[in-house]
């Protein structure tokens, strides 16, 4: 496609530096030194677009002397003085977003929304630049799109590995930004232009909107507080001219570039470049992983409480760690995407979906399918999602599509359409095709292109609707001809028949052959996974059968009776253990599980606990205290004992209350939670129930939990001297709320004196001492 070249201005901060204007808050210069700001803008007036001097102007980062409004307005006035189009410049907030940091999506959104509201009638467009976190950039673009129709350009910064600092690739950035409707996307800052070539190539290979490149003047060196750049105008221009030839149509400069550089670029303003037109693909992403729905992609079905008692219980209890572990084990089994459904009657589904989606994204970087029949829950799941999510689902009913398509459009998602409507699932493939066509057409009316729609032709059970199994497969083939990708929940087919995995596998093979792209299935079923890996060989997707060979080389050719695999030795060179006592003592989790099952065959559960587990833990504790065993071995023993307790609980409903509850938290402002987590596992190994509030826990959440859970005590952890005041404030709030529970304090910088000063009842130096002193002081 032919595009006209637009030239942006160059570096602002480095121009201030060159003029000897050094201030901590350069945005304030819009007011305090408007003359210099205008002079720089004017020096760049050969460019087509001038960006405002507002990079750090947002309520999270800005610490200047004026209001955001005053600075924004002055900055726009200054930029106007160059007589060119003015784009409002927005940089990242400077805070680290969840899950790595503590900044929430809504806090970032509110900061960007404030800027949008203040400026939407005063500028010609926006450039959101130098972002590293895709989620933060999404918050910015959403906030802008919500309040203005002006052009929005968005750039991220990449390193030599072609990833942003947070791990996003050009393909992932382009997929989300394009779906969100930005008018141009690309790269700025980062490196010099020559080093950016691979990033530029990759953007051009996937983008259907104009690509922006605004490099630095090479890598800077900081000497005596001055930033030194080495590239000459010629060094800079050679790769830039190449980028124009490759199809880049928006160019400018970042750190270190000066009017001399932009004057050269401006010679190309308005000339035509030919941007490649890549094929549209159906892609679903997290912030660091992209799944292209070509071939057969495995969507794990296990984060769906239907028929799963334990998951249901975990959701009702708010045990998000359970979901995290379930997500991780599916990923390790080979899932490429994960379905997430939290529909349990009695739960506030939108609130739980929001928490669950965040928690699963923290545990795994597999892209998610947000699965709900409640549009509010869908929106809660996709709003702060970092990437292009798949939404499951709509069907052919007008009111369902009208409720869900606006969410798909707004958040740049891909949507799964079920070929059914108010009248249920049609019997014939042709009728299902008609519904698919209807869904695709209605999506288009909402501005959702065909490559962002997938179709599920719906599996009915072979036991009840035997003739319809073939219709599902036929419908797959028909729907694929519409140019959309397909999905099926394959295991439905076997419901009500014996040996379900056998039917599932046969059906899966047939469905893949009929055109299935995304089986939604149990990745823990090795035979099902094997069917997919085998299909990838037969379809030619697994070139040279490389992946298949790496998985199955050495496997026997004899038909197997699916004998259960021998339990894996914990470590190749570790000596075997012979008893449960020894397994716990040596910290062997897998063997602890096996031996617990053995013991339970001959002993009562309480005898296993009191006769073996407790004595083993006592021994470990003694050896740890005497310096014979070290912390890693204590943790390993605790994990092994925990595993044994879990086995016992699985087999026997728990009676009574156990040994009591402990509420644990790493205090507000502190994100170092490894010490708290060690305390948790050791407490659990001694039979205590731990209510783990996590890290950076707001004071009021500690108070709420203490009042609600009625624990034996509250344990607070802090690592840094700077977060000890927050521990003190938490204890004060507990007392003010009338909570008289004992408070235990711990953490690297604490000692008995500090703990007493801040109002804690007990200080314990390590996890074992915590257990011992709870036993001694509170269980007398």
């Amino acid at each position: 496609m032919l595009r006209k070249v637009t030239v942006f201005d160059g570096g602002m901060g480095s121009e201030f530096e060159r003029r000897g204007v050094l201030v901590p808050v350069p945005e304030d210069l819009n007011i305090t030194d408007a003359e210099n700001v205008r002079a720089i803008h004017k020096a760049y007036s050969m460019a087509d677009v001038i960006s405002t001097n507002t990079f750090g102007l947002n309520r999270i980062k800005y610490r200047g002397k004026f209001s955001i409004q005053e600075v924004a307005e002055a900055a726009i006035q200054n930029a106007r003085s160059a007589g060119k189009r003015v784009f409002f410049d927005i940089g990242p907030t400077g805070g680290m977003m969840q899950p790595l940091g503590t900044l929430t999506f809504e806090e970032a959104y509110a900061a960007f929304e404030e800027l949008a509201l203040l400026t939407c009638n005063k500028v010609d467009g926006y450039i959101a630049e130098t972002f590293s976190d895709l989620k933060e950039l999404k918050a910015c673009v959403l906030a802008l799109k919500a309040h203005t129709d002006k052009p929005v350009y968005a750039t991220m910064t990449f390193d030599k590995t072609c990833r942003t600092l947070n791990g996003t690739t050009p393909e992932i950035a382009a997929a989300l930004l394009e779906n969100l409707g930005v008018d141009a996307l690309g790269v700025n800052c980062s490196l010099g232009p020559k080093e950016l070539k691979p990033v530029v190539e990759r953007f051009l290979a996937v983008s259907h909107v104009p690509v922006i490149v605004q490099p630095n003047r090479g890598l800077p060196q900081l000497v005596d507080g001055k930033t030194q750049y080495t590239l000459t105008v010629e060094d800079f221009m050679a790769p830039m001219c190449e980028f124009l030839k490759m199809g880049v149509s928006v160019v400018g400069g970042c750190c270190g570039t000066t009017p001399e550089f932009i004057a050269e670029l401006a010679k190309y303003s308005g000339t035509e470049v030919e941007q490649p037109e890549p094929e549209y693909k159906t892609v679903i992403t997290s912030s660091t992983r992209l799944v292209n729905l070509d071939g057969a992609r495995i969507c794990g079905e296990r984060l769906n409480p239907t028929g799963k008692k334990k998951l249901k219980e975990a959701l009702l209890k708010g045990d998000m760690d359970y979901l995290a572990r379930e997500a991780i084990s599916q990923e390790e089994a080979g899932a490429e995407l994960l379905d997430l459904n939290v529909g349990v009657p009695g739960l506030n589904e939108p609130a739980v979906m929001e928490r669950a989606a965040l928690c699963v994204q923290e545990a795994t970087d597999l892209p998610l399918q947000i699965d709900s029949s409640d549009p509010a829950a869908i929106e809660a799941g996709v709003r702060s999602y970092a990437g292009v999510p798949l939404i499951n689902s709509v069907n052919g009913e007008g009111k369902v599509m009208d409720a869900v398509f606006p969410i798909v459009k707004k958040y740049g998602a891909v949507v799964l359409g079920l070929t059914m409507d108010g009248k249920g699932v049609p019997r014939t493939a042709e009728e299902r095709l008609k519904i698919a066509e209807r869904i695709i057409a209605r999506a288009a009316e909402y501005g959702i292109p065909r490559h962002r729609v997938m179709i599920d032709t719906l599996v009915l059970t072979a036991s009840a609707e035997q003739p319809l199994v073939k219709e599902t497969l036929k419908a797959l083939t028909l729907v694929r001809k519409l140019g959309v990708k397909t999905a099926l929940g394959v295991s439905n087919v076997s419901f009500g028949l014996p040996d379900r995995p056998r039917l599932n596998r046969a059906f899966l093979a047939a469905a893949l052959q009929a055109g299935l792209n995304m089986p939604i299935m149990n990745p823990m079923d090795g035979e099902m996974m094997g069917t997919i890996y085998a299909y990838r060989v037969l379809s030619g997707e697994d070139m040279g059968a490389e992946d298949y060979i790496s998985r199955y080389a050495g496997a026997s050719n004899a038909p197997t009776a699916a004998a259960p695999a021998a339990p894996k030795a914990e470590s190749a060179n570790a000596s075997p253990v012979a008893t449960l006592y020894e397994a716990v003592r040596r910290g062997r989790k897998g063997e602890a599980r096996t031996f617990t099952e053995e013991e339970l065959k001959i002993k009562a559960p309480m005898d296993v606990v009191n006769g073996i587990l407790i004595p083993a833990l006592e021994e470990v504790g003694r050896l740890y205290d005497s310096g014979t065993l070290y912390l890693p071995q204590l943790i390993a023993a605790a994990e092994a004992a925990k595993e044994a307790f879990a086995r016992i609980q699985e087999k026997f409903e728990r009676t009574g209350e156990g040994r009591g509850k402990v509420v644990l938290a790493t205090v507000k402002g502190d994100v170092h939670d490894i010490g708290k987590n060690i305390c948790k596992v050791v407490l659990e190994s001694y039979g205590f129930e731990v209510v783990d509030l996590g890290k950076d826990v707001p004071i009021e959440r500690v108070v709420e939990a203490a009042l609600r859970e009625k624990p034996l005590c509250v344990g607070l952890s802090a690592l840094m001297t700077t977060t000890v005041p927050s521990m003190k404030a938490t204890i004060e709030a507990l007392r003010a709320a009338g909570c008289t529970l004992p408070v235990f304090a711990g953490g690297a910088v604490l000692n008995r004196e500090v703990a007493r000063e801040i109002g804690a009842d007990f200080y314990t130096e390590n996890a074992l001492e915590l257990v011992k002193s709870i036993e001694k002081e509170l269980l007398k």
Partner: protein
Amino acid sequence: MNYSDLERSILTYLGFFSEPTAEMRALIGEILPRVKGAARFRRAEGRFTALPFFLSKEPYLNFLSGAHTVVLEAVTLGGEVDLLIRRLSKEDMLSGFVADACASALLEAYADDAEEALGTERTYRFCPGYGGSDVRDVRYILESVKAEKIGITRTESGLMLPQKSMAGIVGLGKKTQKSCGECILKEHCAYRKEGRVCFEK
């Protein structure tokens, strides 16, 4: 980077003071490559021939006396390592703990390797918080090397994120080795009780 040095410092961070067990060796052997795989070491530095203002107090003055240049530096392994540690902790606390120690050791080792480029006439890396200095001084280092460019931010309470990040000070033109002499923890140190130190000699 020497693997046995790296293993030794991992064991030190784990609080392992004697010969490691075979299990521990195997676990480190399994987890260290995953941490290495997740790590994207980044570094930013600034050089000063005049003393930056925040360093004109003890113990920095003593540490830097005789140096002709001060190098401020910030290093990080990036956020992916933080996520890996959390993920492993959810599956198994021991693995998470080992990953945390591997990451700390790896960050130190990468930082040491990068400092080779500063020449042999240099001090060790002094980080705010050592020797009674104020850990909040990290802020001045991060600002002056523009650490946001390599993805390091600070929370309101002054913590660096990603967690596996460091900010340090190196003097050029003199040589010093780490010692316990000025350390604030000298009397309470768990390592010293075992007759060891927290750094490699």
